[in-house]
């Protein structure tokens, strides 16, 4: 394989392949990891991979196509919002579990 790195970089294929690898890694992590916070992070990795694919494929030898980049920016915003929300839920769940643990000895039902 003789493709020089600059060509790969300028045509964005490297980014796209990296993105694909990230997606695969993230998916694997999501499936195998149990803790919800790790799963959230894995999902973020998948998202990052998808954004890389999007951005990378927009890169041409002459000029960069801004259209996929616009999609990526929007996507990042959405991902941040969802990650924040997910993290908040995980924290709340941990809090309720911690509050329920000492009371478990008293046979009280933990909050759902």
């Amino acid at each position, binding site marked *: 394989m003789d493709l020089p790195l600059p060509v790969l970089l300028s045509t964005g294929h490297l980014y796209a392949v990296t993105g694909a690898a990230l*997606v695969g890694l993230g998916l694997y992590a999501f499936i195998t990891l149990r803790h*919800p916070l790790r*799963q959230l992070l894995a999902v973020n990795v998948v998202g990052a991979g*998808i954004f890389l*694919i*999007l951005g990378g494929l927009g890169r041409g030898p002459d000029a960069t196509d801004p*259209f996929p980049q616009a999609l990526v920016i929007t996507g990042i915003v959405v991902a941040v919002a969802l990650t924040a929300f997910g993290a908040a*839920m995980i924290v709340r*769940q941990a809090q309720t579990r911690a509050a329920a643990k000492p009371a478990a000895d008293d046979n009280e039902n933990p909050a*759902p």
Partner: protein
Amino acid sequence: MSPLDLLMAAPLGFMAAALMLGPSGRWLILLAAPLMAGLALWLALLPPDAAYLVGQWDLPLGILLRADGVARLMILATALVIGAVGLHALAEPPEKPGHAAQAETFWPLVYLMWAGANAGFLTTDLFNLYVTLEMVSLAAVALAAMGSLAAALRYFMIALLGSLAYLLGVALTVARYDTVDVILLAQVAEADLATLLALGLMTAGLLIKAALFPMHGWLPPAHAAAPAPASALLSAIAVKLGFVILVRLWFEAFAAVTGPAALHVLGGLGAAAVIYGSIQAMRQDRLKPLVAYSTVAQVGYLFLAFPLVAGTVEPSGAWAGMTLHGVAHMLAKAAMFLAAGLMLKAVAGDRIADLGGLAQAMPLTVTAFGLAAVSLMGLPPSGGFTAKFLLLSAAIEQGAFLYAGVLVIGGLLAAVYLFRALSACFAPLAGAGPDTASRGPVTGGVQAVAPLALAGLAIVMGFAGTALVDVSAIEAPWATPTVIQPEAAP
């Protein structure tokens, strides 16, 4: 001003207002419900070529909002459902006293879902659809979290995976065709590997959102603990967006790509969903999971219609049946969840066996439940029957006797579990003898208005068949294409 952008802007405005107003934000629904209903009605009555380019940016970069038949009917049903659910939640005391903050966040979430749903039904831009999908999912997960945090987290993770699969599909589409507009894709799509992969990914993600068997696992737990208005919105609205996007993909954007085998896979999954959901519903001994599994079954009908629409040169009947089924289900399921919520509040437990004496104590609520059940079973006169009639006729005409059989058996199975619940209401109060006073009326008649109105609409829909069929055919992908005339710049 076009109702098309108002339909998205107004709920967002209400959401901002609700966030700012805090506790008194709940009164906004009194303004929002009639306003949105009026807008939706205006939309439904617009001339057939109504469309709107957001920001006047032209395709292929711009976002087109298009009021086709499916959009009009779905948005109208959404307005009615969310309006009724909102008014009901306004009148109803909070389920867990002391959770004032929770009651506060209910309203911005409702408006967020409203905005996302309206936008999702109108837009033809695949990436915009991703954003709307996330808006709706976010709201749905948050609403589900008001019941059970664990179930909501599970829903969240699964939904997120689905969204990402969809996004990956969109990314591949961009890479291949350099556009994400459904109408443009319809003109250029070809059946090559990239397209098939993209379609497959998007479909997988959307099927998770639409809770089609076997990706339905998140739905029953999320419903079981959530408060009734939240369940109503989840079943009625959140699930439908995924379905509508799939319709756009399969019958419009990638219509040239989808073959009969793939359509039958979807149809088969739909049939399996009908049977599986019904059987599971029959096995439930608690009311809310029963209704939740009923949703799983009803979603199956929507996908069972896919091969019926594609399998004929004159799909207006099957298309109308599919659309009307979605609308009727929205109305009936929301009514049923609201009624079930009222009924469960009045009894000691949440089991079906505990429902005794309710037919006497809460006649209006039980009537609402019964009317909703009639539509879900597909018995006349109701919207559910009209939809089933159209689908069954289409199936028989196409010789698709397997699907016809499933349609028929599904109705019977639904009758089994729904009449079981209704029977329980007619039974006397458990533990009471014939002389002890029955349960006194526990809820004022006013609270039964919302479910009764929605259920009544589901029934009345059955009489408006012709008008609804005509609306559903507006700008349908199989109809003679009209030239889209977006609004001129003001």
